[in-house]
């Protein structure tokens, strides 16, 4: 074998090894052992690389914390046995088709109970496979209402639906802002989740008597939203609502500073609660509103994690003093829902767990968990946070607020 052939073979093997590892083929199916039978086995296909790697990483932390807390407390009591929680992770590389393949692979290995991936597109792809295979999925981060309009019966989302993400911020501004703004402009990423959130928020804004002066869409995951901002600038909106992921949301604030777009406030759905938002934008992030599935003031308690503030303390201890993002909390809550359902079912058999999931009506550190017939957690309200002194603090609803709303919120000229 000459050197060139050797290099070609090595290159091919490198690609095969890394590529296959990233899609999860490298872990062979193991025959069940007596030890494995004493485990409560869950599968999680997550975006550990690719465009959603950051959010996927937060989700994984939430699942890991769930496993640690539950196992530290002895494990899950199921049908007279105490089972240790064992979560198997695979990387879907932020691609929906890969997420679906991985869920299929879990099924082939006998893993029937699944923790959801990050994001609506991957969750939607996985949900179809879950339904076909008779698995059960606790969805931690797929909020698009479209997932739940397909008559699936085996996917349960612990989080509030997409329609609440931007609409809750519009409602908070209407309830709290003085003087009340008049005009809103919306910038949305063009993925299903963001568009659903935008449409619902526009309806809410119009119903509350606000004037919607612009509705702009930008490519998903773009870091350049200058075209939308250039069009919006002459309209001088009082509030710019961004319905997008972290990278687009950062671009909205950053490029507004560059282009001299100065509304009274920015409101960005999921980004402000992510630690990267403040770290990346610095002072320009001050006053930005965001919507969140969870804050440390969320009402509710459960036997595993206690209250929301107990959860925050546990998380902080586990992850070097860092405060949890809501993506961490919703991941843990999805894991918790499966555990409670399995305990109530007295079995890890998927159909029995599914039936108990459908009947759940629990108070948890994440708030109430109760699923509608389509699998959405419609009893839980969203909260609104605002960046104040470099931290995301809850400002709405008033009864669980950590601080009053600062208005006007925007400080783009500090950039």
């Amino acid at each position: 074998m000459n050197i060139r052939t050797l290099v070609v073979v090595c290159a091919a093997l490198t690609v095969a090894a890394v590529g296959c590892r990233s899609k999860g083929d490298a872990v062979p199916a193991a025959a069940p052992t007596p030890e494995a039978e004493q485990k409560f086995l869950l599968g999680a296909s997550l975006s550990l690389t690719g465009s959603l790697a950051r959010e996927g990483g937060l989700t994984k932390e939430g699942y890991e914390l769930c496993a640690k807390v539950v196992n530290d407390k002895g494990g899950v009591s199921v049908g007279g046995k105490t089972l240790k929680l064992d979560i198997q992770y695979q990387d879907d590389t932020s691609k929906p088709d890969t997420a679906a393949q991985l869920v299929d692979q879990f099924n082939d290995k006998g893993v029937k109970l699944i923790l959801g991936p990050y994001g609506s597109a991957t969750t939607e792809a996985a949900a179809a496979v879950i339904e076909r295979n008779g698995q059960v999925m606790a969805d931690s981060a797929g909020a698009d209402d479209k997932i739940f309009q397909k008559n699936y019966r085996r996917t349960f989302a612990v989080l509030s639906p997409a329609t609440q993400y931007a609409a809750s911020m519009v409602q908070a501004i209407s309830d709290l802002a003085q003087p009340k703004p008049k005009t809103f402009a919306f910038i949305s990423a063009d993925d299903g989740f963001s568009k659903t959130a935008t449409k619902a928020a526009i309806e809410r804004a119009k119903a509350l008597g606000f004037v919607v002066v612009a509705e702009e869409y930008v490519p998903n995951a773009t870091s350049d939203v200058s075209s939308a901002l250039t069009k919006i600038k002459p309209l001088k909106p009082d509030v710019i609502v961004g319905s997008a992921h972290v990278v687009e949301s950062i671009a909205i604030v950053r490029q507004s500073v560059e282009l001299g777009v100065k509304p009274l406030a920015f409101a960005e759905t999921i980004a402000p609660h992510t630690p990267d938002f403040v770290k990346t934008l610095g002072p320009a992030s001050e006053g930005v509103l965001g919507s969140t599935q969870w804050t440390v003031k969320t009402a509710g308690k459960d036997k595993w994690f206690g209250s929301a503030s107990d959860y925050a303390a546990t998380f902080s201890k586990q992850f070097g003093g860092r405060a949890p993002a809501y993506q961490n909390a919703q991941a843990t809550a999805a894991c918790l829902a499966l555990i409670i359902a399995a305990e109530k079912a007295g079995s890890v058999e998927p159909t029995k767990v599914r039936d108990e999931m459908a009947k759940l009506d629990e108070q948890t550190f994440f708030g109430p968990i109760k699923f509608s017939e389509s699998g959405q957690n419609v009893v839980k309200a969203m909260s609104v946070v605002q960046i104040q002194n470099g931290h995301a603090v809850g400002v709405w609803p008033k009864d669980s607020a950590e601080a009053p709303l600062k208005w006007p919120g925007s400080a783009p000229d500090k950039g």
Partner: protein
Amino acid sequence: MNQFLQATIYGLLQGCMFGLVAVGFSLVWGVMHVINLAHGAFVLLGAYLAWQLHAAFGLDPFLGMLPAGIVLFAFGYALQRGLINLVVNAPIFITLLLTFGLELLLVNGLILVFTADYRSIPTTYAGRSFVLPGDIHIPFGRLIAAGGAIAVTSGLFYVIRRTRTGLAILATGMDRGAARLMGIGARHVYALTFGIAAGLAGMAGAAVGAVNTFSPADAGRYTLLSFVAAVLGGLGNTSGALIGGLLLGLVEAWGGQLLGGTWINAVAFAVLVLVLAIRPQGLVGKAYYASRVEV
């Protein structure tokens, strides 16, 4: 009118940045006939290096372009000499496979070392703007990056056209066999070319870090952007990538204004197809690169 002017100026500044990202990619493709799929990862290596220098020593990211460029040059030189040179004569599929594998390794390495967090290199001035009459804003950060792109491209033009080393690179790219007969060491020249390209990518990365958010997941996007800018501008001309980048920036800006934000990518690729159909060698490319002699 002001709105359109603002979009045009911003598009041109973005275009210069695209050109800076793409110029090294175009050089390697033009001279070595290697489509380097790891180019985006090199850009990110530069961004993380500048970020680390800023975090450790408070070094300004635009000053960080220099050390990022030097380190990436050394990395690129060694990589070409030790690895890529072994397959440089192989069919293009093999070089694609190898650079794709490299990209995966580098991106996953960056995730392991730096995590997938979104980052940016903060400065006090990059977000501020000159304000022209008509409320036209010209952001400092992007203006400096654009100036850097023009300076780097001009410098590269000078090196390639006016120095013995540059002429050796050009000669090797045109006809490796004849260049060898003239006493040019092809292995060294190829390594030098790859090193320069990696260095330019590193410099671009530092600039990107100052004006944009970055994470390891962006590698593919920068490689694709480089591919489009290089093909639009044309290979075999040092200014091709800059001109391709400028065209791409303008097309995106105007497409976003006239058709809406979600059409930006579709318009950019439609222009690429159009240019390839009308002028396959790119806007300023020379056709002789397609018929270069292989020995």
